[in-house]
């Protein structure tokens, strides 16, 4: 192997970008989370775990639990809606498949804020949903600016991120496994439970984790759809920085979320390398 260069020159630009835009800010946040703040909101350079202790205050713990609960519900709802969609897309052939995939990806070509305002106009107090409800004589539903607004926004926005990994793990599955199971006596549901599910469960779990964790740190959706009353972890974090001027505490929250995300990445890596080892064993066995 040649080792004249550590990295190709084009990669240096990316590396510098990575250092300046990600590594440095992250280090600052990490460092700041161990500092204190004065009454006036300026930063006091003394090392302490005070901010992390503060996260266990009931005030923050309640926000954390509420956020985790809402993100969990939203993730499960994404699964409930997304799994059948992914399953259908993986099985169907021909024009319906292309159409389904296009429909799945169209939202990505639309600006995020516009999509959120789409939800506002659907679920607002004079939105399309309520107009329909009053047209049939039902009372108005107040969804926008409640936790339900946040929930709807989360599910809507994160759904494709869960459909895609499930779809791709189903696609990777040998189609003959289904036939083999039926051939050996498994009815449709048995085939699903005993063959399909065990082979895609990692994909489903990782996909769910990658939806769940960013949901925890979500700021824009709760801010725009949840109204002022709903305390959401991501929102609380931003408030620490820009309203309450408690940068160290905000940093501690940010660090905690990052650690969770890194944990998920590590888990995914471990599974990926486990499967790779599997592949190596095949080639050596053959």
């Amino acid at each position, binding site marked *: 192997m040649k080792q004249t260069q550590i990295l190709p020159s084009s990669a240096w630009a990316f590396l510098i970008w990575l250092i300046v835009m990600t590594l440095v800010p992250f280090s600052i946040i990490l460092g700041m989370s161990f500092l204190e703040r004065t009454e006036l909101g300026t930063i006091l350079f003394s090392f302490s775990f005070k901010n992390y202790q503060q996260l266990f205050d009931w005030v923050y713990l309640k926000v954390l639990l509420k956020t985790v609960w809402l993100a969990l519900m939203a993730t499960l709802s994404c699964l409930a809606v997304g799994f059948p969609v992914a399953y259908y897309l993986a099985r169907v052939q021909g024009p319906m498949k292309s159409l389904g995939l296009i429909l799945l990806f169209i939202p990505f070509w639309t600006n995020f804020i516009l999509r959120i305002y789409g939800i506002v106009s659907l679920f607002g107090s004079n939105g399309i949903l309520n107009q329909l409800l009053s047209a049939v004589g039902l009372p108005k539903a107040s969804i926008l600016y409640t936790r339900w607004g946040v929930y709807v926004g989360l599910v809507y926005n994160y759904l494709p991120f869960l459909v895609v990994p499930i779809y791709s793990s189903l696609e990777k599955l*040998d189609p*003959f*496994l289904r*036939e*083999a*199971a*039926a*051939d*050996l*006596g*498994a*009815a449709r549901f*048995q085939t699903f439970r*005993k*063959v399909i599910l*065990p*082979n895609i469960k990692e994909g489903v779990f990782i996909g769910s984790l990658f939806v769940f964790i960013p949901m925890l740190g979500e700021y824009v959706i709760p801010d725009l759809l949840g109204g002022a009353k709903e305390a959401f972890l991501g929102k609380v974090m931003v408030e620490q920085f820009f309203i309450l001027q408690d940068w160290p505490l905000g940093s501690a929250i940010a660090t905690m979320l990052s650690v969770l995300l890194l944990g998920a990445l590590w888990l995914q890596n471990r599974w990926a390398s486990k499967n790779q080892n*599997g*592949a190596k*064993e*095949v080639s050596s*066995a*053959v």
Partner: protein
Amino acid sequence: MLLNLEAVTKNFGGFQLHPLNLSIDRGEFFSLLGPSGCGKTTVLRLIGGFETPTSGRIILKGQDITRLPPHKRNIHTVFQRYALFPHLSVFENVAFPLRLQKLPSAEINSRVAESLKLVEIEDLKDRRTHQISGGQAQRTALARALVAKPDLLLLDEPLSALDPELRMKMREELKTICKKVGITFLLVTHDQEEALQLSDRIAVFKAGQCLQVGTPKAIYEDPTDSFVARFIGSVNEILGELQGEPSPETGEMALSSSVGTFKIKKNGQPLPRQVSIILRPEKVRLLRSKSTTQENLMEGEIQDQTYLGSRTEYAVKIGNSTFKVFEQELERLKKRRLNTGDRVFLAWRSDDAIVLPQSV
């Protein structure tokens, strides 16, 4: 009869399976042979229940199974790419059909062990499917398909993914296992040698049509179709026209062709005037000088020769055609050495020629 196909047809895309009638006996090793795209795999999938016939009936042990889904048929398959369950060990793969039947675990253990022993992979039972070789995967797939004692075992080109040496070994074993377990085997293959070696009977397919069903010997020696003759083994073909009437005693008649006039024998079936003579290379003798005692003689020159160890293959040019003949090593060493361009004579007996209508 174990399995009966009654006028089964299947149309899809541009493919059409012509009405197929087929009967397979209990304990038989039956092969569906033909080039790719001939419909043999479709027939297998119809029997397995993965496709539904357009018309016709499939009868297994007297029961109409035409519309029965695969999981309700007591027919198991060894898939071409094995289709082992990657999340299960070798043992659990084999135990799969038994667990579905909710058998007591003691019985499952003993039957899986027995099945693994049959295919000689007892020591691999705890391996994951990605930790075994192609040949071992093949054996696992076989054990899994046999463990629940199906009425019929379907094998979809099971040996095609193996390297030649392993393929030969597995062929022997397949035959032994079939006889040992007493289960009816239905093999799909495009490898004529494999079909000849393994089968009790063979059905030859071409373009969605079953051309001939018979024992390997019958298919090889008495093909009813020139495609069958050409597909099984190598052939020399002479196109010609029948002359006069067959002699009442011997059935012999004359044939004129671009490479000479010959004496042939009609075997009963009515033939058109335009016929095709099929000569197997091993039924043609190579002579260095003209002989008058031979029934049919053709003169030509050596175009090419290939040394194959136990025998030598010669390509002999006669007129515009090239004929293929073999000479055993023992024979060759006794005689004059032949070089390209040498004049030689090919002799054959009228009994050894296969006479067929010319295919269009």
